[in-house]
Structure formats: C-alpha cells, structure tokens
C-alpha cells in the first residue's frame, strides 16, 4: 500500500521513517513533527492533513543576516529593543499554516506576536531584540518548513503606500445612498399629507447635504478622467457619466431651491455607488503574486566575499560587489555578476536566463554570466563587473520596461462610448428644439432629463462585472491576470509566440532514447554501475532511466571532467561521454544531447536525451493553429528542430538561437505590421519579449517562486488549457457586447419618458437601479455559464467545435 508522509503528504518511498505510529518521508519531516508535538502544537495536523513542507538545508545561507546594514533595510521597525519584520513565505497555503505561524511565540518566547496576511503570504513578526535576532527567526521558520524568500527586491523597496481611496469612496457613496433613500422614500408616493408637507424641505436639504461629498469626493475620478479624455480629444465613457452626474446634481439643486420637486438625489447617489461597486469588483488583485518583477527579485541579497587581507569570508550586499572581488558561490546559489571562474568545478544551469536546456560545464579561467545557477559544489569566482553592468541586467535598461502598456490601449467601452455620446447629445438637442416650439417651459426640463436618463450606468457596469468575473474564473483555473483589461487584449490577439525551454518543455523530466547496437547484459550492468559513481546530471538522469542491476565493484574508474567516464570490470571496459571522448568522429558536430557508449574499444551507440514536452502540446497547437498564427522563438540551439517539426502543425515558424533582444525586436517588427501578439514564456530571457508583446503570459511550475514581469502568470499544470482561455476571453467580449444591447433597450425606455417630458424622480429611481442590476445579473450568469462549459466539460466542447 502506498504510504504518504504525515507531515508533507509526499509518497514515502524506500527510506520512510516510522515515528510515533506515523509515517514520514524523511528525517526532516520527522524533526518538524517532533518540534510541534513536543510543544503541544500538534493541532497543526488536525486543521489540514499533511500541510507541511520538508525543511531545507540552509547551512550558511543566511549568514548575511549578521550584517547590520542589511538587517536595517529588511526590518520594518526597530527601536533597539523591539524589531518588527515582514517576511514573504511562499509555502503559506492553508489554515494550518496560519495557525502554526501565529503560534510562533509558543516555540520561541522572545517572539511577542506574529500575524499572517494570507492573501499576500506574508508574516509580520514582532520580537524582542535583546533575546533574539532576525537570523534566528529565519532559521526557526526554516526548521519548521516555512523558509522565507528574501531577495534583492526586498532590499531596494521602500515603504509601500497602500491605496485605499476606493474603499473610502465606496464607503462615502454607500453611506450617502442609504441615507438619501430613507429620506426620499416618503415623497415617492406623492401624497399631500400635512406632516409630509411640513418636513419635506428639511428632508430635501438633508439629501442635498449627503450628496455633496458623493459628487465632489466619491465621483471625482470620473470628472478627472473625463477632463483628461476631452483634453486629448477622446470621448471616453467617463464623459457621459460625468455629464449625467453633473446634470443630476445641478437640476436637483435647482428643483429643491425653487421648490419645484424633490430632485434626483436618490438616483444620483445610487448611480455613483453602483459605478464604484463595479470598479471595486474589477479591482481584484492577486496580492501574493507580483507582475512587476525584474531581475531584482530573482537575485540574492548578499554574497560571500573572500577577503584575502584579513583571510576571512565576509557577507556583502550584492550592490557592493566591485570589479576584482573574489566571491564564493555555494552549491545551488546564483551568480550575481559576470565573473571569471578561479577555482572549483562549475556546472552552470542557464536555462532560466538564456533558454539553453543543458547545463554548461566551465573550466577555471572561463567567463561566467550573471543569473546562472551553480549546481556542483562551491566555486570561487572573480567579479568582472558590478551588478547593474552585467550582461543580463542590462536588458532592463531597454525603454520597453518603462513604458506603460495601459495608456495606449482603447478598450471596448470607450470605443462604443464615442458614438454613444454623440447620439445622446443629438437626441438631447433635437428634443429640446422640438419642445421649444411646443412648450418652451418644458424644454430645459427635457434637455436635462435626457442627459440624466442616458447616463450610461448599465453600459459602464457591464464591462467591469463581466471582466471581473472572468478574472476570478481564470484565477480558479490557475491563470492569474494582472488586471481585467488583459481579457480584452487576449481577445484581440492574432499571433501567439511560444518560448521553448521551460514553456512547451518541462525542466523536470527527460525522455531518453537509445540508438545503436543493443548492449548485452554484462555491458548494461557495467554501464549502470559506472553511472552510479558519477554525479554529472546526465549520468544521474541516465542512471534513473536504466533498469536495476546488481551492484558491482569496479576495478578502475576515472571521470574526465567535461568529457566522460572510463571504467573497467574484469575483462570488460567501458567509455561513455561525449562523441569525441569515445572516438566517434562522425557525430562530433551534432547538437543532440547524448551520452555515447563504447565498450571494449567498439562503438556501440548513444543515449539521446530529448526535451520532454508538456502533455497535450500537440493537441493544443492543433487547436490554436485554426485561429492563430503560431511562432516558436527559442534561445536554445537547433538540436530539437526535427522533433518539433514532427510534433507541431505544418508551417509553424521555428526560430532558434534567439537572444533576449532578438526576441524583443522580432515581436516589435511584427507589431509594426499590425499584429496583436501574445507571448508565452518563462525565463528571464523572455522578459523583454513579455514586456514588448501585447499580452505577456509567464509560465511557472510554482507560481510562488520567481517569474519575470508580465501581464499574466499561468501555472504550468494548466498549460493545455491555453486554448480555452483564449476562447473564454472571446466569449466574454461577446457577452459584453450583448449586454450593451440590453442596456441600450433600457435607455430607449428611459428616453421615451425623458423626451416626452414625463421623467419623475420615482421613474428615474426605479429605472436606474433596475437597469444596472439586471445587466449585472445578466453578465455574471452568462460568464459563469460559458466558463463552466469551457473549463468543466472539455469533452463536450471538443465535439461541438
């Protein structure tokens, strides 16, 4: 029977630990359990089953937290006795996490209190500085499996100001709306009753008082936006809205001042309240994700510098690295600057930075680029440049990173409102002209009534609610959008560009294929045993791929770094590694990733490593090909070209060896031809392309770790749903268009009352909320229905389309 770890829920394989009648997958998990149970915190496991994470080895990793200059930048408050720090912990994911992290004071009394912000995945810890310090806190958190993520970004950011103005405005509008409704209610029935006659003036002036902050505070953004639009000669949706609000307010004031009627304060406050509600609904943000990241959140905050004068290691801030500094890079640490390898064995993984899928072997004296990850032990390097001048970080000096994509985009509502405003103004003037001849006393009344009733409340509400709702649905499907306008942009896309490494391939798995003469049993056993002693990533992958063999002791074993391995056992000998190393001259120039095998001086064949493509890539591309132009831009070499061509539909454009700037420029060129482009990529090398494209989607195996700046983040497990996302955004736009028709119908009904001069406050008060709410219900139900069809019944959809 399959056993899962009591702490982290992973499968317990061979090395499971049995403790306290429970299974654990490793000693790390067992230790965390011990800490919790001995402190009476085992309730952690009752709230959610297997909520934990395996604690990682962090020996020396956080030594930089001894440096007071770095601590000073990280903490939020410090008075010498008390320190408050806010840490980002990616693992926070369930109620158990909140519970255990808020009970940290049980584990360490020096911690005064700790508070989790679940949506942001942060914890605020308040601790006594005399008994404890930041480094100990990070160690404590790590020991229970909650390692905080501290990056260069934390260092450079200042105090963030949270914008709460929308909540205030919504509060003001809601408060006024409620009170005005109460006050205006008695007059709805138009009964001439003694007490009502007595007090209605008081009621009216009170309503006037309540609506002042609504018009001048809560609605001010609409006026500002309309003004900005008019100045740049664009009739955006806020123009008719502001016009409506102003006319409502002025006419109502005149009405109560001249004692003609009760005014439209109820409609006015209601209108602003609903509009703000729409804005609030659309404003949904995924605060635990960041869409603005640059290399800073990928880079470490500090590195170890070797100081030869004092012959010791010291931790310095990465910005302080100077040319000529000797740095120590430990296993699985990042290279923060361009440098030269001095000492040690470097196996650098550049997949995230350049898109190359294989790790690169470097010898001392070779140049290393910033952003690579060292994978085999500690190395010593000499810095060539400072952080900002490194090759990788220079990409961010491109103009595109300072441009605001939103400004140039004209959304659907504004597109329509242009015509809408003209039509409304035309109707208003025609009707006024008409009434001037019939009954001039009613003319101004009709003019204002048209502007009031035509105020496009429903029109302005349908878009935010449809997009906001879709945004939430996408979020549930693991596609996190930066904001709701991205859906409109997705619907306009005609070209989709994919990156290869890490986007359509996974980095976790490899496909291995053998080509050549079959190996006999003795040879296979020898191969497996040779591989056992090697730590090279390809050896490890091949070792795991081959069938189990008995363990043998080799007579001779020699690993030639960067080339291959030579081993003997009894009368058999084996050489494996690069083509050159085994003496196969014919294949030296191919770009396949392969391990060549030679036994007893005869060449046998090779194990070819293919990139493992994501599930459903073939089907997805076939689906997309029908509607979109598809291009693959890869930073990798052409080794996989043939396989890709077989996998993808015909005429798919494939471009290899693309540098980050090449990708950016390629997209720019296409855009100049009028194409709307969605870029789907993952690494830092795609950052420029993601920023340049109309919609940049970043694929992440784990959305909590770094992903470059983009418009949307998609969790890799839902890669195959990309087609559905595009379809859903198309349908959302169609729903919005149909809701426009609905709101126009309401406007026509309202205009009938307005043009005929019959608009009374009660009709306005009924029509305004009715139209808004029915449009709201309409778009919400329809988007939910569409999404359900697309995402929950994929088979049904396949038959239909």
């Amino acid at each position, binding site marked *: 029977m399959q056993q899962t770890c009591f702490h982290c829920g992973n499968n317990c394989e061979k090395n499971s630990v049995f403790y306290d009648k429970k299974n654990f997958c490793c000693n790390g998990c067992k230790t965390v359990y011990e800490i919790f149970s*001995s*402190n*009476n*915190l085992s*309730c952690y496991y*009752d*709230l959610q089953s297997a909520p934990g994470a395996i604690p990682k080895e962090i020996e020396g990793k956080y030594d930089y937290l001894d440096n007071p200059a770095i601590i000073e930048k990280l903490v939020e408050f410090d008075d010498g006795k008390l320190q408050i720090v806010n840490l980002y912990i990616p693992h926070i994911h369930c*109620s158990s996490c*909140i*519970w255990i992290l*808020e*009970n940290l004071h*049980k584990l360490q*009394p020096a911690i005064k209190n700790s*508070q*989790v*912000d*679940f*949506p*942001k995945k942060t914890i605020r810890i308040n601790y006594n500085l005399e008994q404890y310090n930041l480094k100990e806190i990070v160690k404590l958190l790590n020991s229970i499996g909650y390692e905080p993520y501290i990056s260069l970004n934390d260092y450079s950011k200042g105090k963030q100001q*949270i914008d*709460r103005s929308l*909540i*205030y405005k919504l*509060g003001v509008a809601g*408060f006024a709306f409620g*009170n005005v409704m109460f006050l205006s209610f008695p007059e709805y029935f138009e009964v001439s009753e003694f*007490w009502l006659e*007595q*007090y209605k003036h*008081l009621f009216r002036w*009170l309503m006037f008082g309540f609506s002042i902050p609504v018009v001048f505070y809560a609605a001010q953004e609409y006026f500002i936006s309309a003004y900005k639009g008019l100045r740049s000669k664009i009739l955006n949706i806020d123009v008719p809205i502001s016009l409506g609000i102003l006319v409502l307010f002025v006419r109502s004031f005149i009405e109560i001042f001249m004692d003609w009627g009760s005014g439209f304060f109820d409609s006015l406050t209601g209108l602003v309240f609903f509009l703000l509600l729409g804005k609030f609904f659309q404003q949904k943000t995924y605060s635990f994700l960041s869409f603005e990241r640059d290399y800073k959140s990928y880079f470490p905050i500090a590195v170890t510098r070797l100081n030869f004068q004092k012959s010791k290691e010291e931790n310095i801030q990465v910005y302080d690295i100077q040319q000529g500094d000797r740095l120590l890079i430990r296993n699985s640490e990042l290279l923060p600057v361009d440098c030269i390898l001095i000492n040690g064995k470097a196996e650098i993984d550049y997949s995230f930075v350049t898109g190359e899928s294989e790790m690169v072997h470097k010898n001392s004296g070779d140049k290393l680029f910033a952003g690579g990850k060292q994978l085999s032990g500690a190395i010593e390097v000499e810095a060539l440049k400072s952080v900002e001048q490194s090759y990788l970080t220079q990409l961010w000096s491109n103009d595109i990173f300072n441009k605001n994509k939103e400004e140039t985009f004209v959304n659907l509502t504004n597109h329509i409102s242009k015509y809408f405003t003209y039509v409304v103004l035309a109707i208003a003037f025609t009707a006024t002209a008409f009434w001037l001849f019939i009954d001039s006393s009613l003319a101004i009344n009709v003019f204002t009534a048209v502007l009031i009733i035509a105020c496009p409340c429903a029109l302005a509400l349908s878009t935010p609610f449809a997009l906001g709702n879709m945004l939430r649905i996408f979020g549930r499907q693991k596609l996190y959008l930066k904001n709701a306008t991205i859906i409109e942009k997705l619907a306009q896309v005609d070209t989709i560009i994919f990156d290869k490494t890490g986007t359509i391939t996974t980095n976790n798995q490899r496909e291995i294929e053998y080509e050549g003469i079959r190996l006999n049993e003795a040879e296979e056993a020898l191969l497996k045993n040779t591989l056992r002693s090697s730590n090279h990533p390809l050896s490890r992958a091949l070792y795991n791929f081959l069938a189990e063999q008995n363990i043998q002791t080799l007579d001779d074993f020699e690993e030639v770094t960067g080339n291959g391995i030579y081993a003997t056992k009894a009368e058999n000998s084996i050489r494996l590694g690069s083509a050159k190393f085994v003496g196969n001259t014919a294949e030296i120039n191919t770009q396949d990733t392969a391990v060549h095998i030679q036994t007893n001086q005869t060449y046998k064949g090779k194990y070819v490593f293919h990139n493992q493509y994501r599930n459903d890539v073939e089907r997805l591309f076939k689906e997309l090909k029908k509607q979109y132009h598809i291009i693959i831009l890869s930073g990798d070499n052409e080794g996989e070209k043939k396989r890709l061509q077989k996998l993808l539909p015909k005429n798919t454009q494939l471009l290899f060896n693309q540098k980050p700037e090449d990708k950016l420029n390629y997209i720019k060129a296409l855009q100049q031809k009028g194409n709307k482009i969605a870029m789907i990529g993952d690494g830092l090398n795609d950052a420029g392309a993601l920023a340049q494209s109309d919609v940049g989607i970043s694929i992440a195996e784990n959305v909590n770790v770094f992903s470059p700046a983009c418009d949307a983040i998609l969790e890799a497990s839902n890669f195959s749903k990309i087609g559905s996302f595009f379809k859903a955004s198309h349908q959302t736009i169609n729903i919005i268009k149909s809701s426009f028709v609905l709101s126009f119908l309401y406007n026509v009904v309202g205009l009938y009352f307005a043009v005929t001069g019959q608009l009374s406050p009660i009709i306005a008060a009924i029509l305004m909320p009715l139209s808004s709410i029915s449009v709201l219900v309409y778009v919400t139900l329809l988007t939910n229905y569409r999404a359900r069809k697309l995402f929950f019944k994929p088979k049904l959809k396949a038959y239909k389309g």
Partner: protein
Amino acid sequence: MSAIYILLGISITVAIVFFIVFILSVRKGQYDDVYTPSVRMLFDDELVEKSPKEKSKSRVLTKQKQS
C-alpha cells in the same frame, strides 16, 4: 412636533458615528486583509480545547531549560 427634529438629529448622528468608525477601521488597515481574520477567529476554540494553557506553558519552560 419638534420630536422629529430630535429623532432626525439622533439618527443622523448615529449614522455619522458609524461612518467615522468605518473610516478609522479602513485607515487602521482592517480592510487590507479580509481573508485571514475569517480563518483566525476559528482558532481560539481549538487552542483552549487541545492545549490547556497551564500545560503548554510548562512545556515551553522545560524546553527552554533544555536548550
């Protein structure tokens, strides 16, 4: 019939007091995170039930001595 003036005065004062309280609570950051408190409020009961205060205190103390 000045009662209605008094009543109106009271009702509007009450409304404005609540409004001010709302503004203050937003300012203090109560609306920045609207999810965590909903989970947190369920915890207190469990703590009392599963780990009586006396017990947990003594455990922590003994742990301190050990370390």
